[in-house]
C-alpha cells in the first residue's frame, strides 16, 4: 500500500506525503544497484506481471529489472504475442491473469483509463506504466527523484515542460507531481500542442519558449511522438526544431545550474540538440538509472499493508 492506495494509477491523486515516502524509499533502493550482487530477497515469492499492450523497451525492462532486484518473479506479457491478437477483451485478459494470482500487474495501454479498469476488477495491485495521453506516474516519480537528488529540494523550483503537452502522459504526471511538491510549473510548445484549459492543472502557459526557459531550474523536453500523430500538429520537424528545439544558445536563458531532462527516447536534432543531450546539464541517463530505484520502491511499498494497520 502507498498511503491508502492499493494501486498507483496517476500522480494527481497521490499526496505529497505519499510521494515523499516513495522517493525516500527509492533512495534506499538505489544502493542495491551499486552492489556486486544486485539482488535482495525482499519480495521473494511475489509475482509481478508486466502487461504491455504498447511497444516499450525502456519502461518494461526497467520494471523487469526492478522486480528481479527485489527477488520477485517477473513475467512479461506482450500484446502482439498474446491472446489479445486473438480478439480477447482487456477485461477477459485481466481476469485470466488474476486467476494466476499475481501480486502486482504493471500495465501499459494505448487507451487512457485502461489501468483503472483493471484496478476495479483485479484483486492484486495495479501500476500504470503509461496509459494513452493520461498518466505515466513512475516516469513522473523518477523525474521528481532525479531533481530532488540534484537540487536537494522540489519546492520553489521553476520547472518548464516543453513540447507536445496535449499528447504527453509524461507531462501530465510531471505536472501533477511537481505542483504537488510545491514547484512552479510552466508549459510551452506550439499552440496546437497546448490543450485549452491546461491551467486548471495548476500550471502556467508561457508566452514563448524563451519565457519558459528564463530562470528555469529544470527543463523537461518532451519527445515529438510521431506515432501519436504529433506530425499533423506541426508543419515540419525542421520547423519544430527551429522554434522549439533546445540548443546551447537558448539554454543560456535558464539558470546556470539548470537541469535538462527528457523521458526518452530522444530525437536528436529535433527537440534537443546533440551537444545538449550529451552535455553537462543533461541528466537523461540519471533518469534511466533512477527509474529502476523508483520502480523498486513502488513495488516494495505496494506489496505491503496500509499505514494505518499496525502489528
Amino acid at each position, binding site marked *: 500500500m502507498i498511503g491508502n492506495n492499493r494501486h498507483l494509477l496517476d500522480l494527481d491523486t497521490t499526496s505529497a506525503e505519499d510521494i515523499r515516502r516513495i522517493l525516500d524509499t527509492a533512495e534506499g533502493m538505489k544502493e*542495491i544497484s551499486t552492489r556486486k550482487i544486485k539482488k535482495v530477497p525482499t519480495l521473494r515469492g511475489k509475482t509481478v506481471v508486466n502487461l504491455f499492450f504498447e511497444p516499450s523497451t525502456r519502461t518494461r525492462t526497467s520494471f523487469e529489472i526492478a522486480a528481479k532486484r527485489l527477488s520477485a518473479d517477473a513475467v512479461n506479457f506482450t500484446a502482439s504475442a498474446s491472446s489479445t491478437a486473438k480478439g480477447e477483451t482487456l477485461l477477459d485478459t485481466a481476469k485470466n491473469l488474476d486467476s494466476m494470482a499475481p501480486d502486482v500487474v504493471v500495465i501499459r495501454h494505448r487507451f487512457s483509463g485502461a489501468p483503472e479498469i483493471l484496478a476495479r476488477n483485479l484483486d492484486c495491485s495495479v501500476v500504470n506504466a503509461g496509459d494513452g495521453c493520461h498518466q505515466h506516474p513512475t516516469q513522473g516519480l523518477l523525474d521528481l527523484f532525479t531533481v530532488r537528488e540534484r537540487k536537494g529540494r522540489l519546492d520553489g523550483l521553476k520547472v518548464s515542460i516543453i513540447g507536445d503537452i496535449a499528447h504527453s502522459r509524461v507531462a501530465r504526471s510531471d505536472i501533477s507531481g511537481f505542483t504537488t511538491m510545491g514547484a512552479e510549473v510552466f508549459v510551452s510548445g506550439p499552440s496546437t500542442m497546448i490543450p485549452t484549459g491546461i491551467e486548471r492543472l495548476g500550471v502556467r502557459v508561457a508566452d514563448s519558449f524563451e519565457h519558459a526557459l528564463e530562470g528555469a531550474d529544470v527543463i523537461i523536453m518532451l519527445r515529438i511522438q510521431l506515432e501519436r500523430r504529433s506530425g499533423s500538429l506541426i508543419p515540419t520537424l525542421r520547423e519544430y526544431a527551429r522554434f522549439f528545439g533546445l540548443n546551447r544558445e537558448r539554454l543560456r536563458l535558464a539558470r546556470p545550474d539548470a537541469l535538462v531532462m527528457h523521458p526518452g527516447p530522444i530525437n536528436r536534432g529535433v527537440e534537443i540538440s546533440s551537444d545538449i543531450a550529451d552535455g553537462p546539464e543533461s541528466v537523461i541517463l540519471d533518469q534511466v538509472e533512477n527509474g529502476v530505484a523508483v520502480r523498486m520502491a513502488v513495488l516494495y511499498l505496494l506489496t505491503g499493508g496500509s*499505514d494505518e494497520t499496525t502489528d
Partner: protein
Amino acid sequence: MKGRRQREILEQGDIDRAVRRIAHEILEKNKGASDLILIGIPTPGPVLARRIKALIEEAEGVSVPAGSLDITFYRDDISKRPKPLPKHTDLPSNIDGKTVVLIDDVLFTGRTIRAALDALMDHGRPSKVQLAVLVDRGHRELPVRADFVGRNIPTGRHEEIHVLLSEMGHDEDKVYITEGEV
C-alpha cells in the same frame, strides 16, 4: 502507550562502562585489532560502533573501520504492515576475509541478527562474524548467541526496551523499559 510504567535500567555511567568493557573484550578475543571491522545495525548500532572504534583507538592506537548495515530488505516480516523505510548502508571497506563484529543495541528474538547475517553475506565473505550487543533481553526464537554482551536483562515478552544515546539527540544516554502488556 499512555499509562504504561517506565523504568530506567541503565544510566550514563553503566552504558559507558559496558561499552568500554565490550571494546576490550573484542580486542582480547581477537588478540588485537588487525582485520577487524565494526558494523552497526541502524539505529543505534552505528553509534555504538563509532564509540567502540574510538575506545579501540584509545587502547591500541589503531583505527578500525566502522560502518552501518541496513537489514530492511532481509527482514522476515516484510509483508507485515507498514513497510519500513530502508535505512543507510555504509560498509567501510571490502569485508572479504575480515573479522566483522556486528553491533546492535538489543538482542531479542534473534531475527534481526539472522537478517543481518544474510545482508552481510550479500556484500562479501568475512572470515569470521561476531556479535556485540548492549542489552540481551532473552526470548530467542532462533539459535543466535552474542559474543559480547553489555548487560543481561530479563524481560517480559511484551515489554519494550528503549536505548537512547546522546549522539541521536538525547540529553544523556539511557536505557529504559516500558512495562506491561501492549
